[in-house]
């Protein structure tokens, strides 16, 4: 098991180093292989985590909670890396595909994944902070890599706001150290396990400060309102595979950091205070995101606000605190990684094919893109928590947990806001349908949206030509590349499995992690 933990960090690190000197095509395939092997390694850690996890070597530490976030990250990494193979090969020499840029893209993507996988594996609060800070730095460069003015603006806002937030999180970490040193003596080194063990003896003021500062600081990276303002910019301007990773995996990893502080605060202060803090941040995030979702014209910005919404759901669910709600939260982490990753990857195909991210201009996507169009629509449905996808199950559990824990008003508000967000997503979804749907429109797609599908066809013809130059076959009817379809399909399958019948191992993992979060293990 130890070897698997080390390999989980070594494989992407090696892929990052290799990407710098391998030829672009080899770097692409190495990165995809690295992503898939990381997913296999993370899945292989599940039995060990259910049995109680492991500690060491050095600062590395593993329990059920960290494995859930490892799974979410590794799945996003595998999908984004495989998708990027097609994304770069069909870029036609622009932006990312410019000579010299591809090396940096692959190195950055692998390093980004490596730092995200490192954060949940760190059994030390300071090193966890360092890992999260490294994710900021690497991903800011990835956001800027596209080279447009908007990307530079988004990257600047992102790195400035996220770094300021993390500075606050560092202050919170220092207070955690102060509290720990009071309880454990001056030799204390910010290791997580002893701090949690001694949490009942921590000084209350310091523990309270540590928790609030950590929620505010890491919350900046999670995208909790009111410190979410960088998120829609960075997520919409980054290259689509990077957006998928930012949204599906990075937000979750930052939320993981909050959960660790939550465990400590719960031990030190009792459940009431930390739950109330998370509930307040969560409801604010949900409210604002639901309103912004209602009138969003840019497809990637819409998905970004949907991320704010879902992070709000996680915070609210944790704030409810009932076991069923916590199980829902952890399932939601996995389902969100799959669904949001999927949606961003699908939006990337749409934006590439139509040359725009404006939702009204994407009309006719269902006809032009026989796989990506319908799959994007399904991903939107999954994000809106339609059954039978995983998010229906997780949100149902969270709402049920809210009523169970007696937070009736908050649970009712949650349902209202979820409905509002669903309305926004479905409005965007219907905009993608050709007018009059079926029959006539399908026969004459060019009439359905004058001008655009023609341009789309031309672009896709280019894309298909570029793709067929490589070894992968281009799909029929204008999909740019098979590499850009299969990861999305895999995500939908995962969502379906999570919704219909989560495997027994996963159930075991979730209930083990719920015990950890409740302080019962």
């Amino acid at each position: 098991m130890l070897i698997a933990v080390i390999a989980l960090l070594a494989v992407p690190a090696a892929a990052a180093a290799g990407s710098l000197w391998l030829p672009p095509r080899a770097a692409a395939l190495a990165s995809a292989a690295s992503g898939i092997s990381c997913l296999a390694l993370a899945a292989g850690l599940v039995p060990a985590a259910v049995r109680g996890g492991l500690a060491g070597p050095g600062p590395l530490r593993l329990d059920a909670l960290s494995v859930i976030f490892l799974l979410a990250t590794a799945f996003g990494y595998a999908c984004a890396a495989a998708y990027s193979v097609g994304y770069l090969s069909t870029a036609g020499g622009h932006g990312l595909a410019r000579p010299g840029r591809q090396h940096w893209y692959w190195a950055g993507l692998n390093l980004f994944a490596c730092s995200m996988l490192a954060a949940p594996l760190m059994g030390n609060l300071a090193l966890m902070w360092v890992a999260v800070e490294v994710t900021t730095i690497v991903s800011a460069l990835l956001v800027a890599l596209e080279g447009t003015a908007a990307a530079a603006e988004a990257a600047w806002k992102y790195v400035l706001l996220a770094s300021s937030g993390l500075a606050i999180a560092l202050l919170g970490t220092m207070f955690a150290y102060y509290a720990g040193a009071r309880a454990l003596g001056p030799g204390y080194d910010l290791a997580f396990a002893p701090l949690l063990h001694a949490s009942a003896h921590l000084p209350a003021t310091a523990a309270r400060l540590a928790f609030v500062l950590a929620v505010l600081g890491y919350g900046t990276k999670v995208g909790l309102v009111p410190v979410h303002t960088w998120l829609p910019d960075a997520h919409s301007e980054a290259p689509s595979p990077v957006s998928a990773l930012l949204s599906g995996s990075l937000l979750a990893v930052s939320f993981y950091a909050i959960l660790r502080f939550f465990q400590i605060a719960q031990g030190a202060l009792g459940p009431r205070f930390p739950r109330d803090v998370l509930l307040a941040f969560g409801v604010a995030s949900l409210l604002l995101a639901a309103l912004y979702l209602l009138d969003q014209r840019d497809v990637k910005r819409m998905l970004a606000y949907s991320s704010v919404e879902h992070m709000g759901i996680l915070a609210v669910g944790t704030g409810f605190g009932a076991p069923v709600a916590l199980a829902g939260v952890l399932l939601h982490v996995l389902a969100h990684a799959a669904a949001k990753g999927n949606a961003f990857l699908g939006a990337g195909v749409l934006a590439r094919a139509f040359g725009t991210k404006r939702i009204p201009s994407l009309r006719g996507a269902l006809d032009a893109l026989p796989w990506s169009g319908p799959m994007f629509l399904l991903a939107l449905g999954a994000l809106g928590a339609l059954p039978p996808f995983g998010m229906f199950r997780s949100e149902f559990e969270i709402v049920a947990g809210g009523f169970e824990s007696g937070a009736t008003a908050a649970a009712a508000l949650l349902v209202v806001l979820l409905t509002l967000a669903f309305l926004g997503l479905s409005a965007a979804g219907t905009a993608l349908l050709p007018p009059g749907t079926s029959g006539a429109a399908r026969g004459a797609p060019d009439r359905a949206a004058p001008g655009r599908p023609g341009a789309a066809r031309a672009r896709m013809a280019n894309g298909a030509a570029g793709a067929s130059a490589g070894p992968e076959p281009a799909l029929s009817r204008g999909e740019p590349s098979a590499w850009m379809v299969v990861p999305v399909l895999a995500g939908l399958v995962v969502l379906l499995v999570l919704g219909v019948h989560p495997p027994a191992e996963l159930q075991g993992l979730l209930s083990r992690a719920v015990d950890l979060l409740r302080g019962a293990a």
Partner: protein
Amino acid sequence: MSAGHAPGVYAGGADVIAVLILLAEFGMLRQALARDQVRLYAAQSGLISALAVIVGAVRGLPELYLLAGLSAALKIMVIPLVLRRLLRAGRVGADLAGPDGDIARSGGMSLASTVLVATAVAAAGFFAASHFTVGGAAAPPAALSLSVSVVLVAFILMIHRRDVLSQAIGLFSLENAISLAALVIAASLPLVLEAALLFDLLVAVIVFGLLIRIHHGRAESLSTTDLTSLRG
């Protein structure tokens, strides 16, 4: 002020340094030349290193000397060097007149109102933080509250200024404020962790330099007033 009598030499000295750090932060807030802003940042970092040496001597933590040395090398030498390079490369933009970088007009509000707001915010932070009974007998009584004030003024600096250099300096001085707080409440934090944090700062500086370059290459200026296309 434990036990009601006057602070000793150590606590008094630490508090004086903390006050000077806050003054340096205010200096950066009102400074008209980017070159001088960088100098003030270096001076502030020097104060942090001096405080680290004092704390190390008084509390018998020799590893703090090493930390002070590392931090001085990075924040007094490397970071100002990088920033000055950028300043020279940025030369003349619409809002950067002269080789020294005149950033007097990059503020969002008038200077007087900004300083007033910053004073009010710093005072609020100071008094709010002094209500927390954190710090213990060994810590200087006012330094923690002062570090909260510095954090808040650094935020005002980042909000108020609209040139990327001041925003970056605001962030780096925010990190100085965290260092101040860390010296008060977490002085005995193991060296390897402190070193990891410093290394992280170094990487952050490089990335900021890179992004400033990208921004300058795109916008032909170091102002953020044209960074307004992403909203809603």
